[in-house]
């Protein structure tokens, strides 16, 4: 009994570590860019606690919302 499936925060963390695997192929400044996107995704990972979303979709949606907010604060 107890929890069996990973939380949305764990799912996002898994995606992030998967993404980081290509770091050796890209320049340092690009890594910083990707890290920025990862941290934007993490900021909204909690949305997955109440909505049953595909983790990759949640990742992208979080990044888009965050970038959209930055461009034009709501």
């Amino acid at each position: 009994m107890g929890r069996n499936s990973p939380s949305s925060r764990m799912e996002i963390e898994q995606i992030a570590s998967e993404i980081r695997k290509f770091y050796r192929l890209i320049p340092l400044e690009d890594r910083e860019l990707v890290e920025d996107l990862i941290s934007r995704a993490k900021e909204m990972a909690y949305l997955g606690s109440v909505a049953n979303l595909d983790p990759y979709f949640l990742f992208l949606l979080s990044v888009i919302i965050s970038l959209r907010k930055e461009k034009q604060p709501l």
Partner: protein
Amino acid sequence: MIVDVYGMDNLYTVDLHHNKKEWKYLHEIYVYGPSLEKIHDELGGIPWIKIEERYMKDIYGEKKVLSILTSPRKVRTIVDAVESIGRKYQYQIYNADIDILQAFLVKNSLELFSNRIDDLEELEVLEIGFQNGLNEIEINGETFHNVSVAIDEFFTLLKDSNVIISNQGDTFFPKFFGIANKYGYNTYHRITKERSFESYGRVVHRKSGFIIEGIPHIDASTSFMYGEGGLMGLSLLSNFISVPIWKLARITPGTAVSSYEVKRSLEMGVMIPLYKWDHEEPKDIDTFIEADRGGLILQPKPGVYWDVYEIDFSSMYPSIIVFYNLSPETVNGKCREFETIESLGFRICKDHEGYLSRFLRDLLLHRLEIKKIKKVDGRFEGVDAVFKWLLLTSFGYTGYKNAKFGKIEVHEAVTGIGREILQKSMQIATEEGFKVIHGIVDSLWLSGNGDINRVMERIERETRLQIALEGKYRWIVFLPSREGIGALNRYFGLMYGGKMKVRGIDMRRSDVPNICKRMQEEILLLYSNVNSREDFSMVKEKATAIYEKYMEILQTGRATDEDLTVNFVATRYPEFYLNSNVRKSALMKNPEAKPGDKISFIVVNEKSKIVSVMDSIGYDIGFYVRKLKSSWEQISFPLKDNLYQMILENYDRN
């Protein structure tokens, strides 16, 4: 007033005036299954059991069962026999693993201690502390350096005592009583087995208990429940759940709440299964993922926030169990009227009150009463603490595989409803003009100029749960994680009224050197006078000076052993640690340590994994400097963030 109960077949009770009474007790177990005659035929001829057919109920309804009455010592033999006849699982066996002493007390309507705190004042307490093994023994405040004199004193006082409260009695009593025995002092005692187990993600080591028959012994140094509730808390709980105080002192709150549920079942004549049959129900993958989530935790933005309210639901999860009628037999059970939890598709029966909800309702009401009395009578402080722990753990037990009244769907329904309630509360707060800064399961942090009382009234009306104002912060700091986003449970803040609330930072952690904690404490004291953004700027210099003072102590080699001590709790034996590090080294220097034990050490050379546990042989300056810097990063965050906010404000104005 009975103060102790012990024994197996012949049970004994001892009262306040040391009168001992012997009782004969036969324990009753029940067997349910397809052909009870088979059991009856096989066991009917045994002379030391009494067997008959009866109708009894478990939480799911009435059943025709075989009642088998036998001596407590023979229960296991009967269980083995029934399992052998029924090839292990053909028959369901009830009441076979419950506490014999508790069953005896309930059956004979006997009360342990009293439910009146004034009566408990009459208890004579014998205190004994082993300060330096047997070399320095303190008895009722008097120090003895000679063990034979201490033994004489102890056994003289023992005659008039009702309870022994020791400091490290479980460790040193075996030797102490061994010597006493040679001097002619005889007592009946036994030693329970030591064990390590996991509780709420932590490994705990329970040392062997030294149990003295006829006079309850509590080792204050190892008892969590005594530490929380003191003698009053433990005695009133002992009365409430009918478990001897020496046992209560050595169990977790979760086991105590489970014992409470067993007591209530015994009183109501509800059978308690030996093995649970409430397996997880089959469900589709979407429902599984939807249901298998914990409490809702929001993501705070790191920063300093001003004028923030914290509102907390009182006993949220137990209240949900009570008000939403959640119990193994009411969640997705057979019934005519039901309510559906939309997000999970679970059906909650409304025909009758569930057993778990009934048990917890009474526990909740009892706690509320204690909470009220506590406000006028300080003696109830510890009592309130132990009952609070019972309620806190009552929910977790619904998801525990061995819980007698647990079922995973109940656990999932509770967290599901909890998430909905927190979202509903956030919506109400937003509608009333507040901004939600953070939320953790049953607490919300709100900023804004709305009417907080109106928010709480609406939440209570619309969610059916009680919510209380924890306090209003003059300022609160939510700290960033290493990656820069807000850490979920790391904050500190100053409330109006002067209370400083601190969670998750280094000064609350046991694995951080004391010098780092001292620095944070000193700086927080400075922050306790901060009333405005400008004040943060004004204390910056002083805070930095405190940091530099500790840094200098470290770098000049002047730190004391106490400053440098790092503690951690061993989670396994050293050979099972995969990585070789300072913790493993410290553990290897404590060959007697068991998983769950606290280990203290000083890092001598981190790279070479050299630590000292007893003697001062220098320390690794680099290691401690790094730790101090990290603690400074946390505690100085408002100084930097505040500067950033002030620049932003000035930028806006210009």
